[in-house]
């Protein structure tokens, strides 16, 4: 039987054996005390949503480079370890264990998909591994329906907050106040439905239709016909690029042209792929690399440009996610400085004290003890972006700024 995967695996076993033998007998895990100065991620590096994982990686590696050039943290350089989960929850669970127990990293940064973040909830709690989400926006990732969330934090959007934001923006742009919902049948899409329903109740809007679709569906005419016949002139979309593109195409075919306000599953890639068909589609976000940038963001962009051989900001496929990842690394670094050592528990406690000025906004403090404040980006920092001439821009820099 082959049970050791590779020479490195073998070496790691032996090292781990030496390090752990004594303590393992005593029953206390070694990693509770000292962790390595590495930030590791389980990201979507291959498969159909690989560009999302890459977006996270760009943000993380850029920030780590900056920090290391400035001397690192507590005198040590940070390392980035990137694992691929292909978007699959069970692989994310394996990776979380690998990061927490084998690589013994100080923190883990999450990827794009909400189901993966949900899957590792018990794992990071058990290991005591600080986890920072930078994309997956599912409410339940942070706000647990049972048990206390002690280790999972997020510098990203949260569906419970995104839903009212989207609905408000949709209402502003709707002339008949009839709003339809399109959501993907995934953990993220399905999970957002209760949030949207709650938000609709709060805003006293009636959704004229709630339509779902599966990943890889290429024709969404049936759902759109129902929304059209229900009279919706504005559609709130919870989904990702390929189906977004299919939706635009189906709309064109059935001659239905509602305003689309989308959660941030839509990336800059859609503009590239769908061209002018995407123009005027609104997307919620936290940041855009297109348009005018301030000096700091300009510097970050230049660094990313060289490091990842990009040509234009439109190639940062998930602009908000990259920015969130960048800020998340800085929050981790700040927390480490406060903690004074590479100790996971101390660092976690320091999260509640971090004050930091990031590119997505100001964090003061980054986190609070209340469950809902394990999210660092507040709704007031949410921004609306729109596609214009194939680029995803801040809405203020497009003609689609409120009519």
């Amino acid at each position: 039987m082959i049970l050791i995967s590779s020479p490195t695996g073998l070496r790691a076993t032996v090292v781990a054996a030496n390090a752990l033998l004594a303590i393992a007998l005593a029953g206390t895990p070694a990693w509770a005390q000292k962790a390595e100065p590495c930030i590791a991620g389980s990201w979507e590096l291959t498969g159909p949503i690989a560009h999302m994982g890459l977006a996270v990686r760009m943000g993380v590696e850029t920030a780590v480079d900056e920090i290391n050039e400035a001397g690192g943290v507590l005198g040590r350089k940070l390392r980035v370890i990137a694992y691929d989960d292909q978007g699959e929850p069970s692989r994310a669970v394996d990776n979380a264990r690998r990061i927490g127990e084998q690589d013994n990293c100080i923190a883990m940064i999450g990827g794009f998909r909400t189901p993966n973040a949900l899957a590792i909830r018990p794992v990071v709690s058990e290991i005591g591994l600080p986890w920072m989400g930078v994309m997956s926006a599912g409410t339940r990732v942070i706000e647990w329906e049972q048990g206390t969330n002690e280790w999972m934090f997020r510098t990203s959007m949260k569906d419970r907050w995104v839903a009212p934001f989207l609905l408000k923006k949709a209402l502003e742009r709707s002339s008949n106040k009839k709003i339809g919902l399109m959501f993907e049948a995934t953990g993220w899409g399905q999970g957002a439905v209760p949030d949207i329903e709650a938000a609709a109740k709060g805003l006293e809007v009636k959704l004229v239709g709630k339509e779902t679709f599966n990943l890889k569906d290429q024709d969404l005419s049936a759902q759109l016909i129902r929304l059209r016949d229900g009279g919706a002139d504005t559609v709130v979309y919870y989904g990702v690029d390929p189906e977004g593109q299919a939706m635009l195409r189906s709309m064109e075919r059935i001659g239905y042209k509602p305003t689309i306000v989308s959660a941030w599953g839509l990336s800059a890639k859609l503009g590239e792929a769908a061209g002018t068909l995407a123009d005027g589609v609104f997307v919620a976000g936290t940041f855009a690399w297109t348009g005018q940038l301030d000096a700091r963001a300009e510097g970050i962009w230049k660094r990313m440009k060289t490091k990842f051989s990009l040509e234009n900001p439109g190639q940062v496929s998930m602009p908000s996610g990259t920015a969130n990842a960048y800020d998340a690394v800085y929050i981790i670094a700040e927390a480490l400085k406060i903690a004074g050592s590479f100790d996971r528990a101390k660092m976690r406690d320091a999260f509640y004290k971090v004050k930091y000025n990031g590119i997505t906004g100001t964090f003061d403090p980054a986190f609070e003890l209340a469950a809902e404040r394990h999210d660092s980006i507040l709704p007031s920092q949410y921004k609306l972006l729109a596609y214009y001439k194939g680029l995803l821009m801040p809405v203020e820099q497009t003609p689609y700024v409120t009519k």
Partner: protein
Amino acid sequence: MMSPRVQLLLILAAGAIFLVVFRELGPSGYQLGLLMRTMILMIVAIGLNILIGQAGLVSLGQAAIYGLGAYVAAWLAVRHNVSFLPAIAAAILASACCGAILAYPTVRVRGAYFAVITIAFGLVFENILIEWLSVTGGSQGLIGIPRGNVFGVVLTRPIYFWVVAACLFFAFVVQYNIMHSRYGRAMRATAQSESAARALGINLAGMRTLAFVISAALAGLAGGLYAFLNLYVNYETFSFFHSVSFLLMVVLGGLGTLLGPLLGASILTYIAEALQNLREWQIFAFSVLLAAVMFVMPRGIVGSLSDLYHHTTSRARRREAEPWPNHQISVEPATLMAEHETDAALVTEGLTVRFGGLTAVDNVRLSVYAGTVHALIGPNGAGKSSLLNLISGFYQPTSGDVLFFGERVGGRQSHELARRGMARTFQNTELFGQMTVLDNVLVGFHTHYASTLTETLLRLPRFRREEFAFRERAQQLLCLVGLSDYADDEARHLPFGHQRRLEIARALALRPRLLLLDEPAAGLTHGEIEDLKRLIRLLADNEVTVILVEHHVEMVMAVSDHITVLDYGKVIAAGTVADVRDNPKVIEAYFGRGNLSLKRPDRLLPEPVEIGGAK
């Protein structure tokens, strides 16, 4: 070569040592988890190996059954606070039931058609998981499964490791006990020749259902274990892709081999981890690797290696067939199952079968007396084989009935007839080609075992006793037909004449009261035919009634007590050898103008004399 039992013990011991050493090395939680997941996948693979490797049923929906177990356990634990053991039991039960339902289509649907049913089942299951929000939690799945707890002991990961290991050992032993028992042999038999299996009294549907239930129960067990390992279940772990990878594990490791599923599961899991370094190209590399292995080792790793081993060792010894029948071996008395004893072993009443417009057997009345040799002859296409198939239950009569020792059995399934003591051989020998010669004969004893499935799985005394006795008897039967030397060879490697002998030995294992021989002399040499004649007489002397369909007239004349001549599906003559020999109708049927006579007994009839009927 070690005996299988010693092999099993060695493997179990090696496995146990490995696990203990692994734990003593103090692996990281990640490695512990990885090994636990691998062991769980091994359990699924073992189940699938029983289904595909033994019963020959290809399922591309195994991940769904595995998922059913996982979801049942998770749902009970999360929503109803059911504890570990009952949740696992429910998972096994639910999956086993599901397996039984899935087995039903195998009664009607075969091959690629059946594969599509399993694919469709898997996809339906996946969709239900996504859509049935209130129960399955939709795509988000079920979160927050509490850690298992057995009699107050919390199953922390280090303890759970041993729980999983124990389940794997259990599954492995189940696999061994099935493979090395009449059930495993019967499953392999149904996979390799349905007709022969039926003729030996094996209920195909029953055996397939059993294979399905066992394989599904193991998948359910693994699913339950997975739920309590991961503490989270989501539909993505149970998709079609995963069904494919289970199939890969089994085929890669070696279908039907004991160690194959273990090897396949560990390679697939660990290779996937190792290939992570290849980043974007890992799936590509994975599939290249897979195709490469299939090229080099088409029978899987274990299968190909053991082929190689056998190939190198089998040359060492020359085998010799002995003369047969060996008169020192007694022919056992026939089974006595029916109460009605009459001197007519078999009576057909107006037996008729039509295929479309063609009446292959037309209103045939036949009386075969117990302890006699009764030959059916006639030109090609006369309906002899059709009549034989009607009698033995392979065809359903359009009208008419069959009395077997006084019991009305017309329209009964062939396996039911076999259980009543009717055995047959086939025109084109139907051996279980990839089973050993000895196993072929042992399949014949299938219906004579009294030990139950539980006794077999637990290896209780009655099972051991019976297995020992039947092995002895099977060796004797091989001795009777002079094939003792070949006992451990695969049947497909036997020379043709020996295959005929083996088929007869296998039929005799059924302890038949009536033996139907369908052209047993075809393809035999002159010497072999002489032996066959002696054997047939020997059987008749031991009260086995024989119905013989044969073209070889000299042999028919020599061994038969009675002859019935068919032409165009009708009886044209019947009686003793002498009665038939001079019957002008018979001569005409054979030779049209009747210028040749059957009086010259040494003459072999020319084989394919096309007269009307379609072959």
